[in-house]
């Protein structure tokens, strides 16, 4: 599984609002979206993110994996992540 990196200057507000200073784009995130972005920023791998979600939330591993991958597809679409 590839891993991804979030640019350092990317900040999500308390309210789940994300503003990209470089492009002027803005996004909103839900609670879990915020957590995943935070984990990516701290350098967590996809496996670690899935593990963390299944530990903390009421979700099975396959669902978490599908959802995180779908979320990453969107982040890639929006050019919010870099592959490493």
């Amino acid at each position, binding site marked *: 599984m590839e891993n991804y990196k979030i640019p350092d200057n990317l900040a999500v507000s308390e*309210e789940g*609002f994300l503003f990209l200073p470089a492009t002027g784009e*803005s996004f909103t995130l839900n609670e879990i979206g915020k957590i995943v972005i935070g984990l990516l920023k701290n350098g967590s791998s996809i496996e670690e993110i899935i593990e963390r979600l299944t530990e903390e939330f009421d979700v099975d591993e396959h669902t978490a994996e599908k959802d995180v991958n779908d979320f990453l597809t969107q982040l890639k679409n929006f050019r919010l992540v870099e592959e490493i």
Partner: protein
Amino acid sequence: MKVAVTGLNNVDSPGPGVPVIRGIKDSERFSGKIVGLIYDALEPGAFMPDVADSSYLIPYPSGGLDPFFERLAYINSIEKIDVIIPTLDAELYAFTKLSPKLAEIGIKTFLPSAEQITIRGKDKLFSFCEENGITAPKNILASSIHELYAMPSELKFPVAIKGIFYDAYIANNFEEAAAYFGKISSKWGLPIIVQEFVRGEEYNVVALGDGTGNTTGAVAMKKLYITDKGKGWAGVTIDEPQLIDISKKIIEKLEWKGGAEFEFIKDGNTGKFYLLEINPRFPAWVYLAVGAGQNLPYAALQLALGEEVENFENYEIGKIFIRYSWDLITDIKKFEEITVKGVVVNE
């Protein structure tokens, strides 16, 4: 007193919300707050000083009446709204349909009925005018090229070929008419309106009907400057009793309830006024009427509240409006506020 107003999209084709609010706030008798209802996070009226005290995002009525009403009811639970003044064409059906439900939660409205809104439809307007002795360009509906050729002889070229919702072309002969027929019908569907082409200058009237056939006020305007999008960017109040008389007649025949704009064209040869369109709400230039002595937005608010309103008998001639654009500076935080919470408060 809290009044909610829509149409704060003060952009290059502006909604009438901001001028309506200015009119209401100009009245010495008004003390209260204005709640902006916006469809887009960046409607300028939500951020302009001294316009709305707070503004809320609302869903498009096209998404369904239930969620639309629920959102309004939620906003009402916080703001306790007394009156809603909608100002946009596309939302009028929804507000008209919802007005009994809004009344139940204590919100008053003052709006034309669904039938009144329908009459202004391009295909219905001509027969209304014909029945009531109001001059309008001759108008036939064609559902096939065949019917186009059977065009009655009183319609002489050139004619305007119009779509039922949008688009219009001038045709000088049958060949051109047939070509435009195909062009418009493929885009906007059938029928096609074939209309007598009246060459002349455009005039506009803003008016308020009290629902009994009486005209509370009416102000006539000639556009002085028109943008490339066909919007009046400057205009002057004029003294043309004919225009006011025709407008009063329309309001009387329709028993029009609420604000309206009538668009006319004056035939360059005969000097006759032809009614082109009825817009079922105040126009964006309604503040010119306020400036000329008829505060129609405030009068509409009074009517909604059930107060007695005296008719405006005249207005100042030669008052000019000049529209301008102006760059307002605010912070991304404000945008975040409205995007995430759905409400922005103007301190």
